[in-house]
């Protein structure tokens, strides 16, 4: 007897083994069947199942039977699934016979198989392309309105473009976001173009049309339809010709359909149009058999219609089928968006074009363009093998190109070097390399000529030398080889020839120690030929070869001065002859000498009854002697008085001198000779007059305006003031005496315009220290140096005190990212580090819109804002001296006076009486004030209304008490508003006149 599978009947999972769950399912089903047992349709079935209950419990209760039932359930489910898929495939096969499906058909399938398959599964089973729904027969396709289409056409004519796709230079299948991006680019270009010619204007307008037309798929479809219909309308003439005999035969029809296809119109649309046209004219039409309306599709790149079986476009050769890179679905090239995964496959033609452009750019060596094309293509088409290959090629080409360019540059440099040093043999090989790498190298021909000439000349000399050698005339042969080397420094034959005849060394080398160095002279070599001399120096012992010691010089002369010889140490010299790179086997050697050196940078600084001497010690010095004379300096050692110098020091102070007397000094250095004896230098001299110290300048004031700096000071009673400009802070402190030489080394001396002022141009300098130095005789005293920053100050510093908080706002200069804020209660700060209360960043300022700080307990505050800029390792500050960067603000004495006006009724004589009431927190004597009134409006300024009341200077306002002042104005129906102003603007700094609050809306009660 047939019975259903119990797992299926109980709607249980095939693998369910839990008896509790099975029992629960049985109970639930039993209840359901009991309910349905009297149901007109389900009743019989329910009764049958109720009869099976005992068997169900028996089978499902037995493990073996249950297992068997479970297996059977699985098989039955598989069979059902297979059958369902077969059913689905049959349905799909029926509609997909024509080669594609429409979206509406897919939707119908989804509806039909609802509950059995989800949409994704159904789409997965469809192997043919899915197209957008075709329009019902006879329905007209939506088009752009005629005026817009006409406007687009007119503008396209101006710039000679076929359609908007042609204008954007993009294929027709390109996704609309790319079309929009391109349109925006063109729009932006056209806007930037100041030459507003007809073409540029048309371009801008067309870009605007593109933004509108390609805004959405619907709009785009309208435009595409308009294009297709335009194409058909252009064929009107051809249709008339075809129907000249009142009939369009099948062949003519085919020809017309083909022509329409090349214009991107599908055959069914073209057929409908031609039939309608013929019908209007009253012609007969013979419709050809063959391609059905759906057996065609358009090329995504050019829009031409092709037969379905075609794989590449007959017009442009582009492939007609594209595999989606995201889901691998095969799509027609006209498809803009993959119906399965939504990927923009319509960009395929654009990507291929970019690939081609990238290949071409690679071939031309334009790597920047190639990289741009590849990057753009990658953005549109992810993970394509051809793009990956292109990217690799690009990378490889770039590396190769870099290497090649580097190598070319090195070779060219070597060639230049060889030409300069007449190494023409080497240059000959390099020229070949350079010509190979860079055939357009500018000096190639010039170099070739020079090389050829030099080598020919050297070759001639070598021939001559060999002839002389054969004749036994060695000296002449050496001369000829020398001539060859003079013509070409590295001519190998000449070098080999000279190697056979080494030169003789020079003779009588003498070394004399001088202060400027060690003077060497020797007798020239007796050997003939172009000789040079290699001078070698060694400290402590004579050199034994030309590599033993330091090579001091290679010269053709027979004397040199070795200025680099160390002082105070015994040095030995050897001179070798060098002829054509061949050195003499022996050398001329010198005795050991010790070089003497004087002290350097000797300065004499005058002071009161004293003179300070400073110098720089030379190397190897063993002692210092200082000799003094009144008047001129001592002419030699042992003349005048010797000053006590404790050891080897660099300073000496001579005090107890007489002011106004000239003193001369000679400073002599003492060295130890080869044999231990003392050697004395000639010595250096200086003179100075001790005198009373000049006054220090401590009030240098610097301002800058329009690229010019101006510094002023109070002229001292003694001495002249020199102002030096230096970019770094100097080490001298204020009041320190320095020598005139040291003063000159501080920096550039700024020319003075008077004895109290200098002016100078600022040449984009950001930071400058100005150092005033007072000079009197030979004495100079450093004054207070002033930092002057050319970084622009902040502008328009506004300071207000509200609710016990100080609020500061200002305008930031360009490039400034931080300010240093200094606050003092006695005077303005002298620099950014003086009384700094905050380092405030621009970011922080922008975050709060202001700087806030607690108000100090003081009557007044002096706030300075220094603009700062990171320069190198440290911060550079603006001077903070500009009027917009510092503000004095009254705090403690700032007074607030509340005022309000009230009407007092009729004032007689056509006037209305009013009363001004004033109230202050503490007793205050008011300055001169005016009350300004204005009918139906608030006076914005003292001049913006009528002065109705003058309060003279000195009006007293007691603490907590009202002051009442009456006034009258002409009677009027209009409302009046009043405002109190200080007569003198400067009084606003300490006095705040505040109208008493009248709240309740923004249009407060007005006074009448």
């Amino acid at each position, binding site marked *: 007897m047939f019975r259903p599978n119990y797992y299926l009947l109980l709607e249980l999972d095939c693998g369910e083994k839990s008896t509790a769950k099975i029992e629960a399912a049985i109970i639930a089903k039993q209840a359901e069947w009991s309910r349905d047992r009297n149901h007109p349709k389900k009743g019989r079935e329910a009764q049958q199942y109720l009869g099976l209950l005992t068997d169900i419990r028996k089978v499902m209760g037995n493990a073996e039977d249950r297992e068997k039932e479970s297996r059977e359930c699985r098989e039955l489910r598989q069979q059902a699934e297979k059958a369902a898929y077969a059913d689905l495939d049959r349905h799909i096969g029926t509609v997909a016979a024509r080669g594609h499906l429409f979206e509406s058909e897919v939707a119908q399938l989804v509806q039909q198989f609802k509950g059995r398959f*989800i*949409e*994704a599964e159904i789409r997965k089973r469809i192997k043919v392309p899915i197209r957008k729904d075709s329009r019902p027969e006879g329905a007209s396709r939506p088009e752009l309105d005629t005026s817009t289409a006409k406007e687009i056409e007119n503008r396209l004519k101006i710039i000679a473009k076929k359609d908007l796709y042609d204008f954007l230079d993009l294929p027709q299948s390109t996704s*609309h976001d790319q079309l929009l991006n391109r349109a925006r680019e063109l729009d932006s270009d056209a806007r930037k173009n100041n030459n507003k010619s007809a073409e540029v204007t048309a371009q801008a307008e067309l870009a605007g049309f593109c*933004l509108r037309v390609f*805004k*959405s*798929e619907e709009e785009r479809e309208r435009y595409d339809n308009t294009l297709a219909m335009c194409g058909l309308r252009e064929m009107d003439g051809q249709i008339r010709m075809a129907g000249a005999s009142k009939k369009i035969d099948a062949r003519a029809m085919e020809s017309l359909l083909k022509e329409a296809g090349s214009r991107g119109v599908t055959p069914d649309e073209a057929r409908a149009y031609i039939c309608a046209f013929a019908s209007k004219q009253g012609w007969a039409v013979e419709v050809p058999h063959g391609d059905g309306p759906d057996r065609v599709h358009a090329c995504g790149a050019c829009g031409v219609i092709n037969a379905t079986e075609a794989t590449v476009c007959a017009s442009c050769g582009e492939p007609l089928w594209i595999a989606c890179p995201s889901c691998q679905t095969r799509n027609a090239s006209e498809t803009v*968006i993959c119906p399965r*995964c*939504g990927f923009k496959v319509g960009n395929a033609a654009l990507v291929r074009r970019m690939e081609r452009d990238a290949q071409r750019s690679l071939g031309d060596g334009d790597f920047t363009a190639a990289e741009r094309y590849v990057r753009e293509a990658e953005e549109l088409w992810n993970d394509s093998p051809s793009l990956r290959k292109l990217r690799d090629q690009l990378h490889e080409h770039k590396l190769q190109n870099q290497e090649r360019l580097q190598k070319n540059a090195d070779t060219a440099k070597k060639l230049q070097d060889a030409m300069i040093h007449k190494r023409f043999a080497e240059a000959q090989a390099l020229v070949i390399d350079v010509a190979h790498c860079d055939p357009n190298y500018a000096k190639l021909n010039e170099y070739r000529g020079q090389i050829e000439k030099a080598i020919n000349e050297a070759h001639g000399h070598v021939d001559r030398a060999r002839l002389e050698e054969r004749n036994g005339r060695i000296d002449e042969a050496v001369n000829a080889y020398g001539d060859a080397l003079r013509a070409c420094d590295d001519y190998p034959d000449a070098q080999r020839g000279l190697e056979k005849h080494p030169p003789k060394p020079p003779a009588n080398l003498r070394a004399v120690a001088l202060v400027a160095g060690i003077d060497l002279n020797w007798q020239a070599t007796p050997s003939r030929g172009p000789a040079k001399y290699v001078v070698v120096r060694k400290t402590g012992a004579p050199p034994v070869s030309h590599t033993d010691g330091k090579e001091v010089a290679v010269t053709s002369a027979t004397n040199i001065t070795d200025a680099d010889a160390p002082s105070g140490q015994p040095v030995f010299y050897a001179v070798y002859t060098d002829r054509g790179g061949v050195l003499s086997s022996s050398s001329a050697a010198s005795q050991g000498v010790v070089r003497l050196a004087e002290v350097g940078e000797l300065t004499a600084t005058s002071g009161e009854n004293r003179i300070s001497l400073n110098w720089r010690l030379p190397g190897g010095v063993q002692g210092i002697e200082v000799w003094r004379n009144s008047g001129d300096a001592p002419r030699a050692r042992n003349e005048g008085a010797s000053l006590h110098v404790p050891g080897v020091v660099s300073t000496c102070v001579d005090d107890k001198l007489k002011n106004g007397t000239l003193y001369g000094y000679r400073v002599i250095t003492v060295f130890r000779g080869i044999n231990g004896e003392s050697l004395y230098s000639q010595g250096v001299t200086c003179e100075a007059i001790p005198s009373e110290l000049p006054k220090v300048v401590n009030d240098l004031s610097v301002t800058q305006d329009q690229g010019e700096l101006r510094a002023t000071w109070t002229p001292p009673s003694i001495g002249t003031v020199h102002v030096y400009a230096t970019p770094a802070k100097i080490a001298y402190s204020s009041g320190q005496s320095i020598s005139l030489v040291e003063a000159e080394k501080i920096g550039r001396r700024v020319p003075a315009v008077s004895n109290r002022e200098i002016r100078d141009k600022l040449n984009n300098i950001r930071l400058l220290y100005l150092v005033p130095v007072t000079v009197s005789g030979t004495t100079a005293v450093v004054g207070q140096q002033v930092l002057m920053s050319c970084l622009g100050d902040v502008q*328009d510093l*506004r300071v*207000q005190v*509200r*609710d016990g*908080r100080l*609020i500061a*706002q*200002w*305008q*930031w*200069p*360009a*490039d*400034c*990212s931080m300010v240093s804020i200094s606050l003092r209660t006695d005077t303005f700060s002298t620099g950014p580090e003086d009384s700094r209360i905050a380092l405030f960043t*621009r*970011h922080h*300022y*922008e*975050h*709060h*819109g*202001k700087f806030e700080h607690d108000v100090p307990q003081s009557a007044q505050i002096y706030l300075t804002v220094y603009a700062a800029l990171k320069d190198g390792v440290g911060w550079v500050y603006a001077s903070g001296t500009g009027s917009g960067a510092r503000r004095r603000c009254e705090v403690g004495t700032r007074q607030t006076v509340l005022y309000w006006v009230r009407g007092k009724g009729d004032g007689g004589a056509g006037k209305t009486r009013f009363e001004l009431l004033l109230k202050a927190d503490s007793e205050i004597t008011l300055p001169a004030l005016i009350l300004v009134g204005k009918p139906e*409006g*608030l*006076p*914005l*300024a*003292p001049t*913006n209304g009528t002065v109705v009341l003058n309060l003279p200077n000195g009006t007293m306002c007691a603490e907590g008490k009202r002051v009442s002042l009456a006034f009258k104005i002409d009677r009027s129906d209009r409302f009046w508003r009043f405002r109190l*102003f200080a007569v003198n*603007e400067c009084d*606003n700094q300490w006095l705040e*006149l505040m*109208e008493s*609050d009248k*709240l309740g809306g*923004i*249009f*407060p009660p007005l006074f009448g």
Partner: protein
Amino acid sequence: MRVISPCGSVTCPYCFAQFHLSKAARRSLSPSAVKEPDEVLGRFLSIPAPRLAHVELPPPAKFWGRVKRRLIANHDGMSDWKKICPECHLPLPPKTANGELSNDIFAIIGARSAGKSNYFGVLLKLLQGHYAQEMDFSCYEQETFSVKDLKPIGSSQLYRQRYGRKLFDGNERMAVDQTRSAETEVDSRIPLIYRLECNRRWFHYISRPLSHVAATNLVIFDAAGEDMDDPTKLEHYYRYLLRAKGIIFLIDPLQYPGLRSQLPEEIRKRLPRIETEPAEIVAKVITMFESRAGLPAGGKINVPVAFVLTKSDMLRGIVHSTSEILRDCSHKGGFNRSSCQRVGEEVVECIREWDCPQLVDLAQRRFRHASFFAVSALGELPDEKMRIKAVSPLRVGDPLLWILWKSGYIPAQRI
């Protein structure tokens, strides 16, 4: 689960549609959810229908089921579904989706080149930092929607993309470019959403007895000025304006010939040409309220409207040195009513002085809650290349704080 008002409605922050939470659709968050083209979202954003997880409308229910839904809102947090607006299919902010918070829309409108975007950019920065600190409320980002990635994105990230990078990042400060029309720039239809949490005020103990803070989602929307000039485009914004809790109407003072003539010649050369009169846009807005919201002729609009004179830094040297317009004020402890009122009076007078009293008349006659303000977002006029030295805002927060005070979120200073 949360008990909600059976008659209350929520406002979608994207399309401004109003609906009861029981009508909200939902989108599956499950990674295995079937993806299908979302035509509704595509149509709203004017993009090809994106393939997203499928949307489920509330299933039909019997009477008691419908009653239950009207009274109880489920939490989104623990389920695989996210509530979305049934009209635009964009996700509702989390606390709105469970009926806990309302979305308060604050509209910033004004004519082209009134400085909306710059004001918007600076205002949001200051609101989250300076004003939140000063007035003791917190303001932080909520999720909004990225049209580019078709997924939720933090409002701060969107803020940086639109304004922050130019105004505050990098060494060189730039003013923000003109906002593109929402017709061509889909992204500009997406607002920025911030959570505003304030301390409870006395009436909140009655209106929100279970909540320990008074909170709302601030939905701030920057409309392109060119859309405001065109009556047909303005029509797109009718919902936005009608549903707004407060409107900030920006007025470019440089559009007033009376002021222009007082400016120095070198500044006058750099000014944009005179376009739409601010009063014209206000008239259009009033007409919209009349036609769409049934406002009777001569009736007053109840929404608080802040008329804001932008670029107030240009008034330096024109108004008196003691003018309140040029002085910043502190809102410590509450909205500074007295200072803002004085500014309002001065602004009204300035506008009258520039021979443009229509705006003031309209504001007086047709708005129940209107106030005038003067702000400067950048503190200076940008140069030809839109560069500025630094952002120096002045009184930027006054209008929004006034609206928040009017809406009962923040207190006013005691006088």
